[in-house]
């Protein structure tokens, strides 16, 4: 997984509540068997008309946001399905950090598996960053994961909270599976205990 340490970039404003996973990446793009290449279809229906032409009013189609690396969004971002294609598409577009008052649980979790930093902030902070984001390429925002700080274009600092283990994994680009396999003996012990205590769970249709 790609590390996340510091990021300075243009933030795109998306002041819409309940941006769901179908909006982020619609179903026709879930037929891929790869993780890559989804960025061009990010926010597909908001971004392109039914002929496939760009809608000029959509934020990521505006010249100043075409290379946005941060997204500032409304409440409950990423609600809906478990599709990891949503963070894959965001990452592939080039966005490494999403900032909102709240995220849906599965989406939030999926971000950390893909080197994307989701940041939860109070509404007042979101309002401030949304204003900054509206200033486009003239107003870059800096995110420092180690320090848990966001710096706006005018130098104001916003602190954010993050789970320490997730922070550690993101800072170091750690692979969860590798970490878990270091605990293999604990998994084996658990399975041995379970075979004693609830043998019906060991295999389906057990006698």
């Amino acid at each position, binding site marked *: 997984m790609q590390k996340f340490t510091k990021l300075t970039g243009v933030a795109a404003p998306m002041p819409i509540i309940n941006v769901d996973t179908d909006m982020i990446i619609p179903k026709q793009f879930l037929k891929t068997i790869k993780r890559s290449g989804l960025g061009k279809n990010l926010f597909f229906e908001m971004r392109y008309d039914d002929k496939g032409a760009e809608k000029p009013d959509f934020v990521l189609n505006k010249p100043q946001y075409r290379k946005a690396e941060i997204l500032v969004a409304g409440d409950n971002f990423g609600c809906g399905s478990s599709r*990891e294609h949503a963070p894959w598409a965001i990452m592939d577009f080039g966005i490494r950090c999403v900032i909102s008052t709240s995220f849906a649980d599965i989406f939030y979790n999926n971000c950390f598996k893909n080197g994307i930093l989701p940041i939860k902030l109070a509404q007042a902070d979101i309002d401030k960053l949304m204003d900054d984001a509206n200033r486009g390429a003239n107003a870059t925002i800096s995110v420092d994961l180690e320090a848990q700080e966001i710096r706006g274009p005018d130098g104001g600092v916003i602190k954010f909270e993050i789970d320490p283990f997730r922070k550690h994994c993101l800072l170091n680009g750690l692979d969860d599976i590798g970490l878990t396999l270091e605990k293999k003996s*604990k998994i084996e012990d658990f399975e041995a205990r379970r075979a004693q205590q609830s043998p019906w769970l060991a295999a389906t*249709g*057990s*006698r």
Partner: protein
Amino acid sequence: MATPSTLFDKIWQAHLVDRQEDGTCLLYIDRHLVHEVTSPQAFEGLRVTGRKVRKPEQTLAVADHNVPTKDRDKGIAEEESRIQVETLEANIKDFGVPYFPMSDIRQGVVHIVGPEQGFTLPGATIVCGDSHTATHGAFGSLAFGIGTSEVEHVLATQTLLQRPAKNMLIEVTGTLPQGVTAKDMALYIIGKIGTAGGTGHVIEYAGDAVVALSMEGRMTLCNMTIEGGARAGLIAPDQKTFDYLAGKPMAPKGANWEAAVMYWKTLKTDAGAHFDTIHRFKAEDIAPMVTWGTSPEDVVAITDVVPDPSSAHDEGKKAGMERALAYMGLKAGTPMTEIAIDHVFIGSCTNGRIEDLRAAAELAKGRKVAAGVQVLVVPGSGLVKEQAEAEGLDEIFIDAGFEWRDAGCSMCLAMNTDRLKPGERCASTSNRNFEGRQGRDSRTHLVSPAMAVAAAVTGKLTDVRKL
């Protein structure tokens, strides 16, 4: 005396492999359901790292999202869909995972297949790369949706890294009025708590109105939990649960069954256990519900009107409502019963079980589809289809002018060829009314199976109690 625990706490504790100092837990996963859409990259990850599936016998795969619901003998016409199903078939062979192919009568929507095979069991942890995994909580199992990276993690280790969720109790007491179903209860609750109301929580549903639901109804209620923002919903198992599971092919047998039931009977929240959040509702307050917007929380009683965005309590919500009304092509103040529909979809992991089809058939009997309306009835599995045909339900639907199809996810998310055209409006028994969900610029109104039939035969959203 131990501290009183919730049902969720008990299942969580019983599956702890390890707990790190920072509170991150390694949770053992008893059952893993796999489908074609969210698994290819996970299997590829195993291949690249030379890892195996740790417990193939605790894993079950089925293709459901991409499968056609008619002319199956011709295979899957759309190339990408076909490749995705073929990829699953190659993966299950390479990694030795049990699989129900499209030609198998046991094939169906993954969340219908699990319970009907007895793969789903009380007290078990169940995951799937699909947010509607919450369905299985109806059996008192801790079941939740995961992303593809986590699918790979479970395949490789049979565990997941998780932080404990908060406990939420939703109690519904009293008796559901006539014409009001588990689906209406689910939509009503989401309307009250909001689509992010359950974020960070596991919801336990309780109260006599919940206990009175059939297993099918409980599955519908738990299925919609994710639409209220919680990853998992639970109902304590009882005799109804055990009766449903007894004799199912993958359920325990003999002495194992006896021991299992004895344990399952202990799976309930202790008196005095702490819930972080509690909501209490009265069943009598619930009417047949219908959504008007593009989030499941955008819901009103069928007797109500399209709400006015100016009634919203904050600017974000107001903008959201305006956006939803523009997308849905609706005006505030319009009575819900004046909204004409073009399509009806009866099926999905929410409402594709035999009881749903029985409820639909009971109303469809002797009636005809309204002119210009297309109705798809898509059973949740091959076995549901077989049962429905044994009861003659298929003939009732066909006589009413409905289309009787093969099992799959179908028009719930329109990944196969069952989809709406731009601007078309559908009364749907599925779970999501998001923008574009049933096809680009499609308009979805979520309803119960009975309400879906009422819309089918009148051509507009209709109060089933007045049919």
